[in-house]
Protein backbone atom coordinates (compact mmCIF):
# COMPACT_ATOMS: atom_id res chain seq x y z
CA UNK A 1 0.00 0.00 0.00
CA UNK A 2 1.22 3.51 -0.79
CA UNK A 3 0.53 6.18 1.81
CA UNK A 4 1.34 9.88 2.17
CA UNK A 5 0.37 12.85 4.33
CA UNK A 6 -0.69 16.37 3.34
CA UNK A 7 -1.09 19.22 5.85
CA UNK A 8 -4.52 20.81 6.00
CA UNK A 9 -3.94 24.39 4.81
CA UNK A 10 -5.93 26.29 2.16
CA UNK A 11 -3.13 26.02 -0.43
CA UNK A 12 -3.21 22.20 -0.31
CA UNK A 13 -6.97 21.91 -0.89
CA UNK A 14 -6.51 21.25 -4.61
CA UNK A 15 -4.15 18.32 -3.99
CA UNK A 16 -6.56 16.64 -1.57
CA UNK A 17 -9.57 17.35 -3.81
CA UNK A 18 -7.97 15.77 -6.88
CA UNK A 19 -6.82 12.77 -4.83
CA UNK A 20 -10.39 12.43 -3.52
CA UNK A 21 -11.74 12.09 -7.05
CA UNK A 22 -9.76 8.87 -7.49
CA UNK A 23 -11.97 6.09 -6.02
CA UNK A 24 -8.88 3.96 -5.33
CA UNK A 25 -7.50 6.55 -2.89
CA UNK A 26 -8.83 6.59 0.68
CA UNK A 27 -8.53 9.84 2.60
CA UNK A 28 -8.79 10.20 6.36
CA UNK A 29 -7.41 12.59 8.95
CA UNK A 30 -4.56 12.24 11.45
CA UNK A 31 -4.65 15.43 13.49
CA UNK A 32 -4.38 18.33 11.06
CA UNK A 33 -3.04 16.10 8.27
CA UNK A 34 -4.87 14.33 5.48
CA UNK A 35 -3.70 10.72 5.10
CA UNK A 36 -3.92 9.45 1.53
CA UNK A 37 -3.80 5.66 1.16
CA UNK A 38 -4.01 3.50 -1.94
CA UNK A 39 -3.48 -0.21 -2.72
CA UNK A 40 -1.92 0.91 -5.98
CA UNK A 41 0.25 3.97 -6.70
CA UNK A 42 -1.00 7.40 -5.60
CA UNK A 43 -1.01 9.54 -8.74
CA UNK A 44 -1.99 13.23 -8.67
CA UNK A 45 -2.13 15.44 -11.76
CA UNK A 46 -0.66 18.87 -11.00
CA UNK A 47 -2.73 20.82 -13.52
CA UNK A 48 -5.96 19.37 -12.13
CA UNK A 49 -4.99 20.58 -8.64
CA UNK A 50 -4.52 24.18 -9.83
CA UNK A 51 -1.42 24.39 -7.61
CA UNK A 52 1.29 26.86 -8.44
CA UNK A 53 4.76 25.38 -8.33
CA UNK A 54 5.79 26.57 -4.86
CA UNK A 55 2.75 24.87 -3.32
CA UNK A 56 3.03 21.81 -5.54
CA UNK A 57 6.63 21.05 -4.61
CA UNK A 58 6.03 21.42 -0.87
CA UNK A 59 2.69 19.62 -0.54
CA UNK A 60 4.00 16.25 0.69
CA UNK A 61 4.31 16.21 4.49
CA UNK A 62 5.18 12.56 5.04
CA UNK A 63 5.68 9.15 3.40
CA UNK A 64 4.64 5.91 5.15
CA UNK A 65 6.33 2.78 3.72
CA UNK A 66 6.26 4.66 0.43
CA UNK A 67 8.53 6.66 -1.83
CA UNK A 68 8.15 9.37 -4.47
CA UNK A 69 9.12 8.20 -7.96
CA UNK A 70 7.87 11.27 -9.83
CA UNK A 71 7.31 14.82 -8.62
CA UNK A 72 7.52 17.23 -11.52
CA UNK A 73 5.40 19.85 -13.26
CA UNK A 74 3.10 17.10 -14.58
CA UNK A 75 2.38 14.78 -11.70
CA UNK A 76 3.19 13.32 -8.31
CA UNK A 77 3.52 9.54 -8.11
CA UNK A 78 3.96 7.82 -4.74
CA UNK A 79 4.59 4.08 -4.70
CA UNK A 80 4.85 1.47 -1.96
CA UNK A 81 8.42 0.62 -0.92
Amino acid sequence: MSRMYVLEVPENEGVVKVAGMDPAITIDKVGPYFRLSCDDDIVIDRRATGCRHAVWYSAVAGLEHSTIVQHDKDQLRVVAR
Partner: protein
Amino acid sequence: MSDKPIHRVRGVDHTAFPTFDPAGTVRFYRDVLKFPVVHSICAAGWGPEKHPDFIHFFFDIGNDDRIAFFYYFGLKPIGDPDAPGDSWARLPQGTPKFFVNSRHLAIHVDDEEDLLEYRRRLDESAWPVEMQVMHETIESIYTHDPNGYMIEITRALRPVTPQEDLDAELTVQALCEVAGDQEPSMDKLLTRKAELIVERAAAWEQSIAKELVQS
Protein backbone atom coordinates in the same frame (compact mmCIF):
# COMPACT_ATOMS: atom_id res chain seq x y z
CA MET B 1 11.76 31.81 40.41
CA SER B 2 11.10 34.29 37.65
CA ASP B 3 7.57 34.37 36.29
CA LYS B 4 8.83 35.62 32.94
CA PRO B 5 8.19 33.47 29.86
CA ILE B 6 10.88 31.14 28.46
CA HIS B 7 10.92 33.00 25.14
CA ARG B 8 11.84 36.58 26.01
CA VAL B 9 13.64 38.05 23.00
CA ARG B 10 11.97 40.95 21.19
CA GLY B 11 13.08 40.80 17.57
CA VAL B 12 16.10 42.18 15.75
CA ASP B 13 18.10 44.92 17.48
CA HIS B 14 20.38 45.23 14.46
CA THR B 15 22.01 43.12 11.83
CA ALA B 16 25.39 44.37 10.63
CA PHE B 17 27.31 44.21 7.36
CA PRO B 18 30.54 45.72 6.06
CA THR B 19 30.46 48.19 3.15
CA PHE B 20 33.11 49.58 0.84
CA ASP B 21 30.55 51.94 -0.74
CA PRO B 22 29.02 54.05 2.04
CA ALA B 23 27.63 56.67 -0.35
CA GLY B 24 25.86 54.03 -2.45
CA THR B 25 24.61 52.33 0.70
CA VAL B 26 23.13 55.59 1.99
CA ARG B 27 21.55 56.30 -1.41
CA PHE B 28 19.95 52.87 -1.44
CA TYR B 29 18.63 52.72 2.12
CA ARG B 30 18.02 56.38 2.97
CA ASP B 31 17.21 58.01 -0.38
CA VAL B 32 15.57 55.19 -2.35
CA LEU B 33 13.89 53.07 0.34
CA LYS B 34 13.44 56.09 2.68
CA PHE B 35 14.70 54.21 5.73
CA PRO B 36 15.62 56.85 8.35
CA VAL B 37 19.22 57.06 9.52
CA VAL B 38 18.83 56.49 13.26
CA HIS B 39 22.24 56.03 14.80
CA SER B 40 25.92 56.21 14.01
CA ILE B 41 29.26 55.77 15.71
CA CYS B 42 32.55 57.39 14.59
CA ALA B 43 35.25 55.31 16.20
CA ALA B 44 39.02 55.50 16.21
CA GLY B 45 40.70 52.11 15.80
CA TRP B 46 40.68 50.13 19.00
CA GLY B 47 41.58 46.88 20.63
CA PRO B 48 44.76 44.80 20.81
CA GLU B 49 44.88 44.23 17.03
CA LYS B 50 45.61 46.90 14.48
CA HIS B 51 42.03 48.01 13.85
CA PRO B 52 41.18 50.74 11.30
CA ASP B 53 39.13 53.79 12.18
CA PHE B 54 35.53 53.14 11.24
CA ILE B 55 32.00 54.48 10.95
CA HIS B 56 29.13 52.30 12.11
CA PHE B 57 25.79 53.60 10.82
CA PHE B 58 22.23 52.39 11.21
CA PHE B 59 18.95 52.57 9.30
CA ASP B 60 15.51 51.94 10.79
CA ILE B 61 13.79 48.96 9.13
CA GLY B 62 10.54 49.37 11.06
CA ASN B 63 9.44 48.05 14.44
CA ASP B 64 12.53 49.80 15.90
CA ASP B 65 14.66 47.10 14.26
CA ARG B 66 17.77 48.25 12.39
CA ILE B 67 20.17 47.34 9.62
CA ALA B 68 23.70 48.60 10.27
CA PHE B 69 26.89 48.97 8.25
CA PHE B 70 30.59 49.23 9.01
CA TYR B 71 32.81 51.39 6.85
CA TYR B 72 36.53 50.92 7.62
CA PHE B 73 38.88 53.71 6.55
CA GLY B 74 41.73 52.45 4.40
CA LEU B 75 40.41 48.91 4.06
CA LYS B 76 40.33 47.66 0.47
CA PRO B 77 37.67 45.20 -0.75
CA ILE B 78 38.60 41.67 0.24
CA GLY B 79 38.59 39.03 -2.49
CA ASP B 80 37.95 39.26 -6.24
CA PRO B 81 35.19 41.86 -6.75
CA ASP B 82 34.08 40.06 -9.93
CA ALA B 83 33.52 36.77 -8.08
CA PRO B 84 29.99 35.83 -6.95
CA GLY B 85 29.01 37.01 -3.49
CA ASP B 86 28.96 40.34 -1.70
CA SER B 87 31.18 42.80 0.14
CA TRP B 88 31.50 40.47 3.11
CA ALA B 89 32.41 37.33 1.18
CA ARG B 90 33.45 36.48 -2.34
CA LEU B 91 32.74 32.91 -3.35
CA PRO B 92 34.54 30.76 -5.91
CA GLN B 93 33.53 31.25 -9.56
CA GLY B 94 30.85 28.77 -10.50
CA THR B 95 29.17 28.80 -7.07
CA PRO B 96 25.48 28.05 -7.79
CA LYS B 97 23.27 31.14 -7.73
CA PHE B 98 20.72 29.58 -5.35
CA PHE B 99 23.52 29.15 -2.82
CA VAL B 100 24.83 32.70 -3.28
CA ASN B 101 21.31 34.09 -2.73
CA SER B 102 20.43 31.78 0.15
CA ARG B 103 21.77 34.28 2.68
CA HIS B 104 19.60 37.37 2.60
CA LEU B 105 17.59 39.79 4.71
CA ALA B 106 13.78 39.85 4.38
CA ILE B 107 11.88 42.87 5.69
CA HIS B 108 8.11 42.67 5.99
CA VAL B 109 5.39 45.13 5.06
CA ASP B 110 1.69 45.09 5.97
CA ASP B 111 -0.05 44.76 2.62
CA GLU B 112 0.07 44.78 -1.17
CA GLU B 113 -0.10 48.57 -1.37
CA ASP B 114 3.07 48.87 0.71
CA LEU B 115 4.87 46.12 -1.22
CA LEU B 116 4.08 47.87 -4.51
CA GLU B 117 5.21 51.20 -3.08
CA TYR B 118 8.65 49.73 -2.33
CA ARG B 119 8.63 48.12 -5.77
CA ARG B 120 7.99 51.58 -7.27
CA ARG B 121 10.80 53.18 -5.27
CA LEU B 122 13.28 50.50 -6.30
CA ASP B 123 12.20 50.44 -9.95
CA GLU B 124 12.85 54.18 -10.20
CA SER B 125 16.36 53.71 -8.80
CA ALA B 126 19.63 52.16 -9.93
CA TRP B 127 18.60 48.98 -8.05
CA PRO B 128 15.32 47.87 -9.68
CA VAL B 129 13.38 44.85 -8.47
CA GLU B 130 14.96 41.73 -9.97
CA MET B 131 12.11 39.39 -9.13
CA GLN B 132 8.56 39.52 -7.73
CA VAL B 133 7.33 36.14 -6.53
CA MET B 134 4.16 34.81 -4.95
CA HIS B 135 5.17 31.88 -2.71
CA GLU B 136 2.64 29.72 -0.86
CA THR B 137 1.68 32.24 1.78
CA ILE B 138 3.81 35.29 1.03
CA GLU B 139 4.53 37.68 -1.84
CA SER B 140 8.04 39.08 -2.14
CA ILE B 141 10.21 41.42 -4.17
CA TYR B 142 13.97 41.03 -4.37
CA THR B 143 16.96 43.12 -5.28
CA HIS B 144 20.64 43.40 -4.37
CA ASP B 145 21.88 46.48 -2.53
CA PRO B 146 25.06 48.32 -3.66
CA ASN B 147 27.14 45.89 -1.59
CA GLY B 148 25.70 42.80 -3.25
CA TYR B 149 23.56 41.84 -0.25
CA MET B 150 20.24 40.39 -1.32
CA ILE B 151 17.28 42.23 0.16
CA GLU B 152 13.75 40.85 0.14
CA ILE B 153 10.62 42.81 0.99
CA THR B 154 7.69 40.57 1.75
CA ARG B 155 4.02 40.56 2.78
CA ALA B 156 2.01 37.73 4.26
CA LEU B 157 -0.97 36.59 2.17
CA ARG B 158 -2.60 35.09 5.25
CA PRO B 159 -1.69 34.54 8.90
CA VAL B 160 0.31 31.40 9.78
CA THR B 161 -2.00 28.74 11.24
CA PRO B 162 -1.25 26.71 14.39
CA GLN B 163 -1.01 23.48 12.36
CA GLU B 164 1.81 25.05 10.33
CA ASP B 165 3.75 25.60 13.55
CA LEU B 166 3.24 21.92 14.40
CA ASP B 167 4.30 20.94 10.88
CA ALA B 168 7.45 23.08 11.18
CA GLU B 169 8.26 21.44 14.51
CA LEU B 170 7.93 17.96 13.04
CA THR B 171 9.98 18.91 9.96
CA VAL B 172 12.79 20.32 12.07
CA GLN B 173 12.77 17.29 14.39
CA ALA B 174 12.95 14.94 11.39
CA LEU B 175 15.68 17.09 9.83
CA CYS B 176 17.86 16.95 12.95
CA GLU B 177 17.58 13.16 13.00
CA VAL B 178 18.13 12.68 9.27
CA ALA B 179 20.96 15.23 8.90
CA GLY B 180 23.18 12.94 10.99
CA ASP B 181 22.67 10.12 8.50
CA GLN B 182 25.50 9.19 6.12
CA GLU B 183 23.41 10.30 3.16
CA PRO B 184 20.62 12.65 4.23
CA SER B 185 17.75 12.90 1.74
CA MET B 186 14.25 14.27 1.37
CA ASP B 187 13.00 10.69 1.11
CA LYS B 188 14.46 9.85 4.53
CA LEU B 189 13.11 13.07 6.04
CA LEU B 190 9.55 12.51 4.78
CA THR B 191 9.65 8.92 6.01
CA ARG B 192 10.72 10.00 9.50
CA LYS B 193 8.22 12.85 9.45
CA ALA B 194 5.35 10.45 8.71
CA GLU B 195 6.30 8.53 11.89
CA LEU B 196 6.27 11.78 13.88
CA ILE B 197 2.87 12.71 12.40
CA VAL B 198 1.45 9.37 13.55
CA GLU B 199 3.04 9.76 17.01
CA ARG B 200 2.11 13.37 17.66
CA ALA B 201 -0.42 14.95 15.29
CA ALA B 202 -3.64 13.41 16.67
CA ALA B 203 -2.68 14.24 20.27
CA TRP B 204 -1.76 17.76 19.19
CA GLU B 205 -5.18 18.31 17.65
CA GLN B 206 -6.91 17.07 20.81
CA SER B 207 -4.86 19.47 22.94
CA ILE B 208 -5.72 22.38 20.63
CA ALA B 209 -9.42 21.47 20.78
CA LYS B 210 -9.21 21.33 24.59
CA GLU B 211 -7.60 24.78 24.67
CA LEU B 212 -10.37 26.15 22.47
CA VAL B 213 -13.08 24.68 24.70
CA GLN B 214 -11.39 26.11 27.81
CA SER B 215 -11.06 29.57 26.28
